[in-house]
């Protein structure tokens, strides 16, 4: 997804390649760099998946859209809808996942439905005791995929609560996520986080683009 590398900068800035999480969020995270330097890559990998991901981008995006819907997070719904669009997921499929009909629709493959089911249960705090959902997801995902999906759904719950609590507003220029996130891109972002340049630019957006 070429356009995904050029996310909108925060605080009203023109498009820049160094703000992968979108307007507002990086600026807030700049205030807590100790946690943010780990949080940003973790969120990117959760939302977009890595090059060694066991979950295909389509199933991941549908599952995480469900999480954003359960969590009532307009910020992440919009971002994930844009990711879905870039992956060729149609608006009617997005609509189904965001509605109460997602368990019944034939539009989803069984593996996708299992991923959405498990993500839904994680978001609703029912995953610990829901045996049917667990049995279903384990039909389609091995240990690695199951743990990755659970981590991704849990991190998305956290991202939704973060966006809601901070009242982050989406920007019409913000694009979706690269899915999967290229390792080189992740390395570049994390390098900018560890040397502080990402956060200093987020805190002082007029100081120039990278």
């Amino acid at each position, binding site marked *: 997804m070429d356009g995904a590398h050029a996310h909108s900068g925060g605080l009203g800035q023109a498009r820049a390649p160094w703000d992968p999480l979108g307007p507002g969020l990086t600026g807030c995270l700049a205030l*807590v760099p*100790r946690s943010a330097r*780990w*949080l940003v890559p973790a969120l990117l990998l959760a939302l977009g998946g890595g090059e060694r*991901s066991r979950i295909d981008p389509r199933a991941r995006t549908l599952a995480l859209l469900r999480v954003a819907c359960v969590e009532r997070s307009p910020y992440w719904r919009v971002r994930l809808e844009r990711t879905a669009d870039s992956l060729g997921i149609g608006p009617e499929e997005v609509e189904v996942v965001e509605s109460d009909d997602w368990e019944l629709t034939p539009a989803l493959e069984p593996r996708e439905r299992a991923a959405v089911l498990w993500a839904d249960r994680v978001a609703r705090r029912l995953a*610990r005791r829901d045996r049917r959902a667990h049995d279903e997801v384990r039909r389609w995902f091995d240990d690695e995929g199951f743990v*990755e999906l659970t*981590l991704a759904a849990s*991190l998305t719950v956290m991202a939704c609560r973060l966006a809601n609590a901070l009242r982050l507003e989406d920007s019409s220029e913000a694009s979706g996520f690269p899915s999967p996130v290229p390792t080189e891109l992740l390395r570049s972002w994390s390098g900018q986080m560890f040397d502080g340049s990402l956060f200093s630019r987020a805190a002082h957006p007029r100081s120039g683009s990278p």
Partner: protein
Amino acid sequence: MSTVAPRVPPVADEEASPEARELFGAARELLGFVSNFTRTAAHAPELARWVVPLIAAVQRGGPDAELEPRVKELAILRTSSLNRCSF
């Protein structure tokens, strides 16, 4: 103490991949031990590599911590309680 069996077996030291061993080493350095959370997350090492230090950074204090330890601990306890998480 929970009597519910884990859904995925935690990765033991002797069966850890080189990437998981690296993660366990970092966890020992950060936390002094390797938790079952880290051993389970090690099944997805690409993500765990960032999540384990994130949790350490969020939960542990330090000279560059943003919150004082008492306030942070109270917030963590309340959040865990609301999420019914005894871990």
